[in-house]
């Protein structure tokens, strides 16, 4: 077979070289814009089939040698449709190029290939530069937040570089990952954390920082979101959570283009929470003590120096942000290139938080011969991250927000000795000591990219070899200095955590494209292997002579406190893939794909899985009975079915191994030990999702109204579940494949050109519903899970309800003085919370818990408007979420304080029940825990629905005719401008718990409101 192929290739190559020996003639002419008639300077002209090209001069004129006046010329220019013109015997040929009509020409990147939008059979949303979010954007996922129906992007933190959860079409998994697979220029990214620890005595964030930060958003040309199984099945065991394909910009033949974009701005906390001020705190606490809720010893005796607004002290006002991006691109018909440089610097709205990125990219493609193409796509970046302790922890591990929210407002900032005042009521450091005394810096270096070669073996048959690699190296340094209680006791605590995640990809594919008389065929087959190698090392020391050396000389620390650890793991994927697209009569489309995936993570009995898919499309508008309806431009019906997998669990879960155990003391000294790590499961395999998608693409009135509708149902079975096992085994869980979950939804995207003409108005609407249902738990009645600080057992997973439904007590109101107390045996008094006694047994206990809501929105929507008049542009973006609930754990802290003397949210305390103010809503706070800690209840689980004016941007394009500048635009923009919500925490759109569909808000790093001034210049 290979020999035949070789001969075929040889023959094909030979046939092309024949042309060279011919005689030459000159053809001249000009290239102009078809609409305006303006000359196009720098357009490329070449003879079809011949190497070598010329470009037009400033007047748009060209001059080219041809071997025969029967040849054809190909003319191309950036932003215009490429034209092929028959010379047809002429020696003067004036060519008019038409602007690209993107709607017609749009090509969609799908896995291992591209298709024309009109030939698409799966559910794929393509977002190009025009569709991206505007304003301060740190990462690729922020570009598409709210823009693609069915894609939920939830910020975990308002922190610069903070994590983001992206869920495509809901959540199918309890214990395996729910993040989509990101593929950048053909390289599937590994986004697992490099450094997982947070450093000694430095509290850990629940969520990792956003791994996509190391990609410069300015480099991105388009993002394709693959949603249904026919689109994602080609990614097999990594496709079940959807796939996000990122394509970076490339150069185009023509003159050098230089682009410079920059913006700078300020950010402030968008919404502040109201705590008790010093006077209110003193009066409230003392009044509660008077009412029997505390002892005299706890009385607040006075206010030191007017007290302190701790939150205001940890907020950073007018935090600066700036971004500079410089790119050069261009090339000729053989070689194109793009190189870019980026500098991004964002301070956070909390003190001492800052994120910087320096990145560079090179995309290069070179045609060695007509049939042989080599290319490279390479990106390297350095991300410098400075951050304050924040996140979901308490006590001595508290972050600045938790400390500031709990700290006594009657204290002064400094005590009489000039050091940070300490509260005697809690094991929490002064909020500013935490902010200024716990330094953390992360330096992350990432280089990734692919080198590829493509060879046309025969007409329509191309072989491609793609070699990729990704190396991330990160070092995190934390130093807890003597400003803090712990740093002072230990004489400084230094930690260095280092890690490296690397992977390589080797991929070979064959592509076959053939057009027959009435049909066309496109097929791809290939093989790919990817291996992931992770290692880490950390060291820690305490007891330094001075804080000055920080983490830079651990050896100065007390040698008995030195601690080290290290680890290494490897996992691999080996896959075979194939896909066929067949189009008949340009009306009937069929796509079939299969991927066979093997993963080292799974049990010896289940190494390989098969992931098939099938999709059908029908371009109804091409049918005779619709063809003549003018108003109808596009009408395409799509249907697909497919199976995908999810392999996102940790390594070694199928094996029984011995890892680090607890330490013990023999003969008065510490010794290490080993302990069994888990109960093995040799049958462990991927989660399987089966998805059916029915969609309709439409375009009316010459595509002034275009859109897509999709309905899907996605059933995930053999869920990777960390199944609770009887604790008497000495283990708490075992990774198993069990149960099933269903996600269903309806998605609409509509783009309209409302006004054309001088005043233009375009709109984009995105809307989707989402219903999540646990279908089967394999015989377990339910799983109760979730925790945040002292709050546990937050949510229930049970058949018939959405995953992680909030599970707790329904509050009816407040016990009043003349209520009938005979209906309860509980120890309640007037002013206590009245819980619903579901089973009527006069006792409110665990049996009276009910579902209080869930984190899945009923629907998510966005509404984007672009207005333009002459050189002025206005962009207005609204978005919202409806029907999602969130546990506000700061509200839990208010109702169930760790002890009396904690500051709390003002509203419930100031309006609390007293005999003179028999509030029906707020309790007396006299004995908050007398009925037990019923922390998850209908007060603390809040409605997190919201409507937001997300971004407004006003731009002005400078009139620059005949200038050295190609283009220049200045703009101002505002982000996070207005939010309408009932939610009482910082931001209903933030979820510090990290999983987009299990929302727990606690000590959130607040969101910023951002104003920017920017400029984009083209040379």
């Amino acid at each position, binding site marked *: 077979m290979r020999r035949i192929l*070789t001969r075929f*290739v*040889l023959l094909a190559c030979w046939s092309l070289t024949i042309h060279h020996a011919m005689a030459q003639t000159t053809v001249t002419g000009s290239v102009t814009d078809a609409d305006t008639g303006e000359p196009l300077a720098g357009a490329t002209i070449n003879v079809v089939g011949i190497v070598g090209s010329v470009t037009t001069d400033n007047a748009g004129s060209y001059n080219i040698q041809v071997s025969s006046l029967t040849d054809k010329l190909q003319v191309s220019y950036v932003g215009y449709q490429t034209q092929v013109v028959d010379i047809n015997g002429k020696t003067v040929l004036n060519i008019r190029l038409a602007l690209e009509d993107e709607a017609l020409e749009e090509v969609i990147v799908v896995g291992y290939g591209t298709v024309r939008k009109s030939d698409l059979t799966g559910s794929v949303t393509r977002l190009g530069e025009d569709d991206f979010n505007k304003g301060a954007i740190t990462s690729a996922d922020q570009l598409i937040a709210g823009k693609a129906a069915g894609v939920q992007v939830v910020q975990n933190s308002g922190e610069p570089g903070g994590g983001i959860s992206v869920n495509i079409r809901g959540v199918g998994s309890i214990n395996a990952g729910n993040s989509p697979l990101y593929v950048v220029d053909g390289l599937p990214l590994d986004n697992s954390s490099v450094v997982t620890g947070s450093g000694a005595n430095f509290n850990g964030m629940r969520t990792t920082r956003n791994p996509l930060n190391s990609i410069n958003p300015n480099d991105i040309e388009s993002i394709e979101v693959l949603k249904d199984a026919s689109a994602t099945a080609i990614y097999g065991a990594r496709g079940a959570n959807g796939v996000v394909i990122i394509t970076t910009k490339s150069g185009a033949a023509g003159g050098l283009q230089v682009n410079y974009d920059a913006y700078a701005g300020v950010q402030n906390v968008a919404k502040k929470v109201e705590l008790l001020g010093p006077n209110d705190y003193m009066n409230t606490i003392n009044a509660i003590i008077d009412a029997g809720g505390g*002892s005299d010893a706890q009385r607040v005796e006075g206010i030191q120096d007017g007290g302190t607004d701790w939150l205001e002290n940890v907020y950073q006002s007018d935090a600066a942000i700036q971004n500079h991006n410089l790119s050069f691109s261009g090339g000729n018909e053989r070689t194109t290139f793009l190189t870019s440089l980026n500098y991004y610097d964002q301070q956070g709205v909390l003190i001492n938080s800052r994120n910087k990125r320096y990145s560079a990219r090179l995309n290069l493609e070179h045609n*060695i011969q007509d049939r042989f193409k080599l290319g490279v796509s390479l990106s390297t970046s350095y991300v410098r991250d400075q951050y304050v302790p924040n996140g979901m922890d308490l*006590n001595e591990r508290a972050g600045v927000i938790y400390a500031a929210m709990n700290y006594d407002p009657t204290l002064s900032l400094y005590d009489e000795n000039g050091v940070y005042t300490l509260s005697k*009521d*809690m*094991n929490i450091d002064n909020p500013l000591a935490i902010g200024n005394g716990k330094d953390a810096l992360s330096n992350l270096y990432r280089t990734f990219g692919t080198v590829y070669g493509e060879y046309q073996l025969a007409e329509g048959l191309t*072989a491609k*070899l793609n070699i990729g690699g990704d190396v991330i190296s990160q070092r995190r340094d934390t130093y807890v200095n003597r400003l803090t209680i712990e740093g002072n*006791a*230990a*004489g400084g*605590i230094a930690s260095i955590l280092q890690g490296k995640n690397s992977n390589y990809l080797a*991929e070979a594919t064959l592509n076959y494209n053939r057009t027959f008389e009435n049909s066309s065929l496109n097929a791809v087959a290939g*093989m790919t*292997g990817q291996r992931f190698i992770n290692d880490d090392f950390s060291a820690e020391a*305490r007891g330094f002579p001075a804080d000055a050396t920080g983490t830079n000389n651990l050896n100065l620390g007390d040698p008995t*406190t030195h601690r080290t650890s290290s680890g*290494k*793991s*490897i996992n*691999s994927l*080996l896959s075979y893939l194939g896909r066929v697209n067949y189009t008949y009569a340009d009306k009937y489309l069929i796509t079939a794909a299969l991927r066979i995936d093997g*993963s*080292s993570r799974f049990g010896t009995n289940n*190494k390989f899985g098969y992931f098939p898919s099938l999709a059908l499309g029908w371009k109804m508008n091409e049918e005779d009975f619709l063809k003549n309806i003018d108003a109808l431009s596009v009408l395409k019906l799509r249907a697909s079915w497919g199976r995908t997998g999810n392999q996102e669990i940790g*390594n070694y879960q*199928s*094996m029984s*191994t*011995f890892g680090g*155990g607890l*330490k*013990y*003391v023999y*003969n*008065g*000294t*510490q010794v290490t*030990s*080993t302990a*069994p790590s888990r109960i093995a499961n040799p049958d462990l395999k991927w989660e399987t999702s089966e998805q059916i998608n029915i969609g309709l693409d439409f375009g009316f009135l010459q595509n002034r109204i275009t859109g897509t509708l999709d309905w899907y149902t996605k059933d995930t079975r053999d869920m990777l579940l960390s199944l*609770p*096992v009887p*604790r*008497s*085994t*000495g283990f*708490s869980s075992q990774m198993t494949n069990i149960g099933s979950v269903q996600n269903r939804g309806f998605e609409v995207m509509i783009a309209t050109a409302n006004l054309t003409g001088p005043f233009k108005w375009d709109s984009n609407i995105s809307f989707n519903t989402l219903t999540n249902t646990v279908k089967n738990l394999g015989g377990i009645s339910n799983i109760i899970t979730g925790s945040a600080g*002292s709050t*546990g057992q937050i949510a229930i997973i049970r058949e018939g309800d959405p995953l992680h439904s909030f599970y707790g007590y329904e509050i009816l109101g407040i016990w009043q003085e003349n209520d009938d107390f005979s209906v309860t045996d509980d120890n309640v008094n007037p002013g206590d919370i009245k819980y619903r006694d579901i089973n009527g047994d006069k006792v409110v206990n*665990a049996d009276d818990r009910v579902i209080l809501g869930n984190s899945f929105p009923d629907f998510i929507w966005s509404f984007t408007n672009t207005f333009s008049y002459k050189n002025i542009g206005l962009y207005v973006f609204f978005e919202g979420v409806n029907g999602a609930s969130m546990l506000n754990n700061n509200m839990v802290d208010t109702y169930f304080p*760790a*002890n009396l003397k904690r500051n709390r949210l003002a509203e419930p305390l100031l309006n609390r029940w007293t005999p003179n103010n028999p509030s029906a809503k707020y309790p007396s706070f006299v004995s908050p*825990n*007398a009925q*037990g*800690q019923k922390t998850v209840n209908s007060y603390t689980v809040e409605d997190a629905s919201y409507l937001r004016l997300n971004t407004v941007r006003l731009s002005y394009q400078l009139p620059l005719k005949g200038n050295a500048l190609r283009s220049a635009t200045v703009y101002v923009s505002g982000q996070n401008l207005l939010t309408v919500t009932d939610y009482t925490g910082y931001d209903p759109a933030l979820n510090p718990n990290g999983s987009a569909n299990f929302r727990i808000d606690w000590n959130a790093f607040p969101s910023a409101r951002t104003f920017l001034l920017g400029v984009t210049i083209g040379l």
Partner: protein
Amino acid sequence: MKNQLKYRFIGVLTVAFSLGSCNGFLDEEVFSQLAPDNYLNTKEGIESVLTDGYARAANMNSNNSIYVLAPQEWPTDILYQSGDNVERDARNFIDFNWDPTITFIGNNWDAPYQCIRDANTLLESIGNANVPEAEKPGYIAEFRFLRAISYYKLYFMFGPVPLRTSTTGELQLARATDEEIKAFIESELIAATADLPAPGGEAAYGRAHKGAAMGYLCKFYLNTKQWQKCAEIAKQLIDNFDYGLFSDYQTLFSVENEQNEEYIWVRPAFASSDRSTANSWSNTAFPDNFAEAPALGVSYLPTYVNWPNEFRIYDSFYESFDPTDKRRNLLVTSYINSSGETVSLLGNDNIRSFKYLPDPGAQGASHGNDIPEIRFADILLARAEALNELNGPTQEAINLINEVRGRAGVDDLQLADFTGTEALRNHILKERGWEFYSEGHRRMDLIRMGLFISNAQSRGKTNAQAHHVLYPIPQAVMDSDPLLVQNEGY
């Protein structure tokens, strides 16, 4: 040229495709952990997992040192807690309104069962391990000792629990009967005693020996009111080994006097920054702005940490002591604060127990004082109590108590002062309180004497009901095994 290129390209492609024939590509290689096949065959592997077993039994990681003690003392007449985050949970213990979701119960379930898991794993592996046959009975005795004391702890917290004696059985397992679990603990401790080395003969301090196994057996008989057996085994312990009372009660619990003749079995501590084997008591004992307790010669060092999580002793307990009782000296009633002022702690139930005198080598919240689980005084008083229950007050019982009192510097008891069993029992309860406060014995002492609930009621804890003598099985445990039945009342 073209052909070369093409062949090269096809060559590379072929190499790429042939990746698929590398069978090892998907093998899961382990780097940072140890595979079971060859690990438990070695003596090193056996010893390493055994060490984990001891660590689980000691349960000293992080704050567990005190949160194992807390459920044994917070609901009693000696100690309570307030301040900081812990207060929320402590209140449930103090006010007798705990339920299966409360913290500090879970870590009293999981750690013993992890120890049992380790012991079962080791018992199943030792047969084929590359360990000299002569050493195997000694190892097996250690494994059985660890397993038995874990069931002992579980039994007195939760009542009869599932009896798991192998790693291969069904995952779900119902609770054993009261008889089964008691018989198991007794027979296993007896069997372990036979093959364990005599005290001092163990391979390292911290590993099991005959004295420890017999000590647990004695406490098991005591708490299950098997008086005759209790008295007998106590006598064997007293007669057969060199245990004695350490001369100075005040420094008995300090770091420099560890491994003394009185400690029969301890939960060993060692100060380290990772707090993996930490005694956290002092952090909760230091009062506000503590600088110095002159009576004890204790000064606050900059390496210490003073938590607002305060373990406080009731005034009534302090007042119950004979003023000359040296044991009372470890209860701090006044101190000098960091401003140099003398602060009294008397009068509002705010006395502090400095039983575990702060470790000069402490690292932050981690102090190195071992926590005794069984000490010789306990054996003496156990025998005295058993004899009293069997025969009423006798001179021998009085003498045993007087041995303990003598070290405390208080007057001898006279047989004539005790009219009957109950009178001496009541005194033994007091004596045990004075002797063992802050050591986690009070709850069982009260329960054994039938006073746990009435004592709480008399202190105004009106919620206290009969079922509170057992803690509920933690909710997470209940959720994990449908065969489990919750203790009555919860």
